């Protein structure tokens, strides 16, 4: 979601894909950002609990 992206931008300083690829993210931050993205994608392609 957008908050995940804003948090990501806060940490990395750029949203360039190639910069993000090579940036080492700490484990807990990665999990948090992953959860935000996952909620968005899970609603979009209906995953089971979010499929409505």
């Amino acid at each position, binding site marked *: 979601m957008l908050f995940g992206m804003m948090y990501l931008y806060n940490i990395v300083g750029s949203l360039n894909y190639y910069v*993000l*690829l090579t*940036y080492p*993210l700490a*484990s807990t931050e*990665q*999990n948090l*950002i*992953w*959860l935000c*993205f*996952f909620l*968005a*994608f*899970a*609603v*979009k*392609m*209906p*995953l*089971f*609990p979010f*499929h409505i």
Partner: protein
Amino acid sequence: MLLASLLLKLGGYGFLRFSLTFLSEATHFFAPAVSALALAGVVYGSLSTLRQVDLKRIIAYSSVSHMNLVVLGVFSCNQEGLEGATYLMVAHGVVSSALFFCVGVIYDRAHSRLLRYYGGLVTVMPLFATAFLIFSLANMSFPGTPNFIGEVLIFAGIFQRSTAVLFLSTAGIILSAAFSVFLFNRLAFGTLKTKYAAEFTDANRRECSILLVLLVPTILLGVSSNIVLEVTHFVLFDISHYFSAALGSM
């Protein structure tokens, strides 16, 4: 039609492009949980389809089931799973929009989407019933349709992770066959409601052309999968390789 064919795949694209590449460790951490959810979604989506009475909802819930299978493929994180997920997304885009179009053709005639009002349509709409049969078989992942290839590749990917998940997701195949055949039989075969038979004219030229445009990729992609796969080989190899490299250096 556009929603089912394009927007549902955005989530899959997002998983492929974002989760697997720069969030690889989190993906590896959460993969069992997401796989469990997706597995539940496959079975539950197919079971929900069996209960529906509205034509559109049947196809929508079958889309849910297919997309959960795609997520299972993505989170298997090896090249076969990723290729199967991509291929199933492409195939599902064609077939799902074709099925929604078929429902739209029927709705144009009778202005009702309840399944109980239909029956025996093959006698009055043979061309439409043929196309609907091919799309129903594709929805069921019949061999010779692209959904089958996508599903086989996804199962090849899942097998490398866990055989228990594979065993349970094959229940999804059985249930999707069940609701697909159920839908087609209720719609095309059975007794024709003769009182309304005059309304059911066969697909006219415009509808036939759209059905043909959607039929050609279904059969073509089902027979020769290299059209899509050889484009996606390198990209997906890169993604899976990046994933395992990121994991190896973890």
